[in-house]
Structures are given as C-alpha cells and as structure tokens.
C-alpha cells in the first residue's frame, strides 16, 4: 500500500483508481472499527448497566458497519483479502482511521465527548454518502445512518446532561472537549484523496460537511453550556496512516488472538 499514489496530482480528476477507492473505503471502515473496539473496552466497567448496554450496542453497530465496509474494501482491492484479513492482519501504519477514534476512553464523560464529536460527523457523512455515485457505499451508508441517529441521540443527550449538570461533571466534559477538539480538524479538512472522491461524486465535499457539522455540534454545545475550544490543528493524520501511540496498543489487544491462532474458529 503506498500512501502517496492516491494523493498525487496526476491521480486527480477522472475516475478514481481501485487503489484510491480502496483507501477511501478503508478510512470509513477503520474509523468505525477502531471506535467500536474502544467502546467495547467499557464492557464490565461502565457506570451503570443501562449505559454499559448502550455503549456495547453502539460498539456492535459500529463493528457491523466496519464489517460491511471492510468486506467491500477487500473486493475493491481485488487481492483476496477479506474483512478478517483487513481487520486483523494489518499493522498501525496501514490503518486509515481518524485519529480521534483511537484516543483512549478516559472517564465516562471523555468517552461521551469523543462519541459526540464522531457521531455528529458520521451522521452528516452517512447522510451525504447515501447519495454516493458508488452504489455499494450508498446502500451501506443508508443502512448505517439509521443506527447513527440513535448513537447521536445517546451521546448528545449525555453531553447536555453532563455539561449542564454538576460543577464536577461540567468541568470534566469541558476538559475532555478541550483535549479532543484538536483531533476534529482531520475529520473536516480534505486531503487529496477526499477531494478526488468528492470530484467523482463518491464522497461529499468535506468543506460543505464542515458547515453542517459545526452547526450540529455548536447547537448541542450551547445547550450543554460548554465552551467551544479555539480552533487547533493536530499535525498528525490517522487517515493517512500516521497515528498516535495509542493505536498500536489497541491493535495488540484486538489482533492478538487471530494472529496467535491463525484461522481459529469459535
């Protein structure tokens, strides 16, 4: 997998190559997979049974979406890699998830803030992708968006309760927001591959998506009495395979079993 090819000016315009489409689908798949894996870490540890069920259910939806997307990515790539090969046999630099998804859970409020920022993004993205020129992506997105609406109601609901709650809960989610905000620019700043997919009608324009995301997030932050942090850019880009140190640890846990026992079945 080469990181530069899909972004080179020569690759822009015209119909995107299979390699470019593969990498784009992987971005969507990996963000869902890694976020789902993170949420799964709450099982057995959530503050209340109802919230544990909610986090586990959201994780399940995300991993289900990731399976559909990874399966499709494997078909586009055409080298015989199935969803399991892509999930379990790649190393960190080959993962294309948004950096925000791999950030550790922290406390419950921290997890809610991460979820809230990503739910708002996936909701706008999947709604737009439902009209993608890529029929398969369109049908996966149309399916996923119904689930994502539930995720958003959950995370935005908790954000408001915690933000507009006690002094302690307010301070904790504000702190989480301040810590995680720098990872949001990656979601909304298009690189060459994003632009190429938008030009081909496969993906929405991220610049247009930014406005809708900011309106959605801004309204919820106001209701939660939280301060929107100042714009800041994180210099690394998970979607280009450059990750924070947290992803390797997550992958070690997620991939250990299938790598230790290749082909093992339940």
């Amino acid at each position, binding site marked *: 997998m080469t990181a530069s090819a899909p972004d080179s000016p020569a690759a822009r315009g015209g119909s995107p190559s299979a390699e470019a489409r593969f990498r784009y689908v992987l971005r969507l798949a990996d963000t869902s997979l890694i976020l*789902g894996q993170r949420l799964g870490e709450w099982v057995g540890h959530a503050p209340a049974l*109802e*919230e544990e*069920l*909610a986090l*586990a*259910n*959201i*994780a*399940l*939806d*995300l*991993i*289900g*979406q990731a*399976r*559909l997307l990874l399966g499709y990515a494997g078909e586009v790539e055409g080298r015989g890699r199935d969803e399991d090969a892509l999930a379990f046999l790649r190393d960190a630099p080959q993962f294309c998830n948004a950096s925000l998804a791999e950030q550790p859970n922290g406390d419950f409020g921290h997890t809610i803030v991460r979820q809230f920022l990503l739910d708002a993004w996936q909701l706008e993205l999947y709604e737009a992708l439902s009209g993608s020129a890529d029929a398969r992506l*369109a*049908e*996966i997105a*149309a*399916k*996923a968006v*119904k*689930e994502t*609406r*539930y995720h958003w*109601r*959950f995370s935005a609901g908790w954000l408001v309760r915690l933000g507009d709650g006690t002094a302690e809960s307010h301070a904790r989610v504000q702190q989480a927001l301040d810590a995680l905000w720098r990872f949001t620019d990656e979601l909304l700043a298009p690189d060459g591959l994003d632009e190429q997919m938008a030009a081909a009608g496969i993906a929405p324009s991220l610049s247009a998506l930014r406005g809708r995301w900011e309106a959605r997030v801004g309204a919820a932050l106001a209701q939660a009495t939280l301060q929107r942090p100042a714009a800041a850019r994180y210099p690394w880009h998970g979607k280009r395979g450059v990750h924070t140190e947290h992803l390797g640890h997550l992958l070690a846990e997620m991939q250990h079993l299938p790598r230790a026992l290749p082909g093992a079945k339940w």
Partner: protein
Amino acid sequence: MVTGTTPEPVWQVLRSVMDPEIPVLSVVELGIVRYVRPAQGHLRVGITPTYCGCPATEVIQRSIRAALAQHDMGDVIVETVLSPPWSSEWLSEEGRRKLQAFGIAVPTARAPSQVTCPRCASHRAECVSEFGSTPCKAHYRCGECLEPFDVFKCI
C-alpha cells in the same frame, strides 16, 4: 428431491425458521426475507439484516440453510441484501401481534412514542434506555404496573 425452481415451498420452510432472539417470530414475519427467486436451476433467497452488527444475522442465515437442506429444497443460495434498509415497518401485522403477546411492545413509525405496556396495556411508559437487550430493542418501564419491558425500536 425438489428440483429447486419454485419459490412457494421455500417460503413455507422459511415460515418455520424462527428468529433466535425472539423465538415466537419467523424470519418472514420479521420482514427480513426480501425475495425467493429462481435463477438458472437454483433458488436465491435474499435476507436483509435488521442492524449492521446484529449477531443473530449469521445464526439466521445458518438456520435458513439448515432448514432448507433438511426439507430437500435443492440448490439454494442465501444472499445478503442491504437496500432498501430494513425498518420496523417491515414487520408483518401477525408479527406485531406475536411480539406484543411475547412481551415486546411494538410502536409504529407514525407514532413511535405510543408505547403500550405488553403486560397491563397502559400507555404510561417511560424510556429507561434507548439501548436494550439486543440491537433492535429499547428498554422501557411501565408507569402503571412498574414492570420493565422491551420495545422494538422504530428505525
């Protein structure tokens, strides 16, 4: 041996395949069988998942293959169909009645907040959590008889 080119016997078998999580409901009543159609000497059965990550989907596909093999239905290909996505509106009327009798309330998409307690038929119910025991259900509590119960989500 059935030659495997007529859909009706296959529909009959499918009506006997139950959802593993909701054993009173067949896959046909759940509304996840999209088609049974002949194609070049065999039959294709299209199944749509309720939720992307629902672990029951694979169990259902296995049960369908096993039931069709047991009834000697010949060459049947079970395939996944995503579009149009499943919604609770695909539940059959009979399916809705069976769910309510089983203890799972089923509001309609037209009135998603109109939840009837499956135990005492009260409309005074409150949502405890939008996420319940399986991806397709939310968790409610009756304000009248105070019993907790599941609600089939409207998606």
